[in-house]
């Protein structure tokens, strides 16, 4: 912890206090955010591929919908698991408080799941691609606020100064684009040609670059705007407890995939692209976990 100007002057030390609460939102919430990024991200990427490479997505509509359904259910399952009273989840629907991002998010996610099931029905039972694409447009529109609501929730945590709505919104969108493109590169297999995968690689590389830029902006300029942010960022600087995990996350999620994508374009190697995708997916969990945890280490009182 950096020496505070006042600490040096007063040598103030807490000598008797109650034990403070530990981490309030643990790794379960990290998985929640990670799974949601994949669940909404693959839908964004399917929409992109239908518009840019329509001939390539013939066999991808149903598998992508299934992947989205699986990961949105992982997101919902871990949301439920994190509740201390999970059997009261229904209160959100029967006693809703509309100023809460949790309420709005729960409702939107529920509608999103319903629409995904509809997409699965249209693609697997009715086999109607035209209708699927029409519905998909609305699913994509809904996927945007479903992605963003966690940023709103984090910004409502006024105690955690690090999380601000504008930055977190951008981070959520970039995380969805990164996770979605990475998963589609892996899911595409032989169904997608190299050109389609190259398009996904561009999305992956650019979202990694933008996300990394935002993190570095916070890292460098964050301490200048608020005392609490300065204290929080000390946990990922120097010999801070989360320094290693933070930089490991930045390298695995952003820097190495960016490098691998450049190399794959130069050598036209699909394997390098797949490796970049795999690293981005694994690293995203680390990055999210560090950013979720560090503001919770700060004593509030």
């Amino acid at each position, binding site marked *: 912890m950096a020496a505070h100007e006042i*600490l040096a002057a*007063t040598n103030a030390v807490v000598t*008797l206090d109650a034990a403070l*609460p530990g981490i309030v939102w643990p790794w379960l919430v990290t998985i929640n955010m990670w799974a949601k990024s994949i669940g909404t991200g693959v839908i964004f990427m399917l929409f992109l591929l239908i518009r840019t490479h329509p001939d390539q997505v013939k066999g991808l509509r149903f598998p992508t919908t299934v992947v989205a359904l699986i990961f949105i259910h992982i997101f919902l399952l871990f949301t439920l698991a994190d509740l201390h009273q999970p059997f009261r989840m229904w*209160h959100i629907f029967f006693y809703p*408080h509309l100023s809460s991002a949790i309420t709005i998010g729960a409702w939107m996610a529920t509608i999103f799941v319903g629409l995904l099931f509809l997409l699965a029905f249209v693609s697997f039972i009715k086999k109607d691609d035209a209708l699927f694409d029409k519905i998909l447009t609305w699913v994509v529109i809904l996927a945007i606020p479903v992605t963003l609501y966690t940023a709103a929730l984090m910004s409502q945590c*006024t105690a955690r100064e690090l999380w601000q709505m504008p930055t977190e919104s951008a981070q959520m969108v970039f995380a969805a684009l990164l996770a979605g493109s990475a998963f589609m590169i892996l899911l595409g297999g032989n169904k997608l040609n190299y050109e389609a995968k190259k398009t996904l690689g561009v999305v992956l590389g650019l979202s990694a670059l933008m996300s990394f830029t935002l993190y570095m902006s916070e890292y460098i300029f964050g301490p200048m705007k608020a*005392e609490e942010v300065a204290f929080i960022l000390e946990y990922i600087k120097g010999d801070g407890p989360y320094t290693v995990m933070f930089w490991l996350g930045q390298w695995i999620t952003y820097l190495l995939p960016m490098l691998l994508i450049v190399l794959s374009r130069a050598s036209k190697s699909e394997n390098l692209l797949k490796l970049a995708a795999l690293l981005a997916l694994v690293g995203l969990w680390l990055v999210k976990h560090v950013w979720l945890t560090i503001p919770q280490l700060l004593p*509030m009182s």
Partner: protein
Amino acid sequence: MQLGFLVDLHLCMGCKGCEIACKVENEVPLSTWRLRVKYVDVGTFPETKRTFTPLRCNHCENAPCVRICPVSALHYLENGIVNIDKERCIGCAGCVMACPYGAIYIDPQTQTADKCTYCAHRVASSMMPSCVVACPVQANIFGDLDDPTSNISKYIQKNQSNVQVRKPEKGTNPHHFYVNGGNVSLNPLASKRVEGFSLFNNITTLPVGGSH
């Protein structure tokens, strides 16, 4: 009516009588506190002094916990108290994350959020909160902020140049005031927490709600 609290830190002697009275009155489980008194030692020997700061829910006018609660378990009473309905709470801990004062905890017995309610059940019966009754030096002053003749209003008027709230920059408009408070007593970032100095020694944090 807007009920508020004021603590005169010049009078508080850190006896923790309020803390114990609160524990007993509200049956607050082990490892959790609705009200606690924090000791901060200031200076270098032999020029040292000890500050005592009772910390409880600030019953903010613009409460982040009320805003984030998805099921309105946290809600305002007409008298300004921020109350909690434990039967409705789903234990999402959003309020714990939103409170800038660290005043909300997850009750390990009920697995729901809980906090100081200014003893709303006693207030409803025209009694003072238990911590006010227990204080031997009347450092805790409780009353109606809307009534200029109430003790709290008079106290604020009398000490207006020396009345503070915690973290005013958060825009929460707390209904909890301190007289004779300083940066060390009111700003948690202005003091160090060194393991081994506390009565609790190495226990500086505890699991939230006794689980995950």
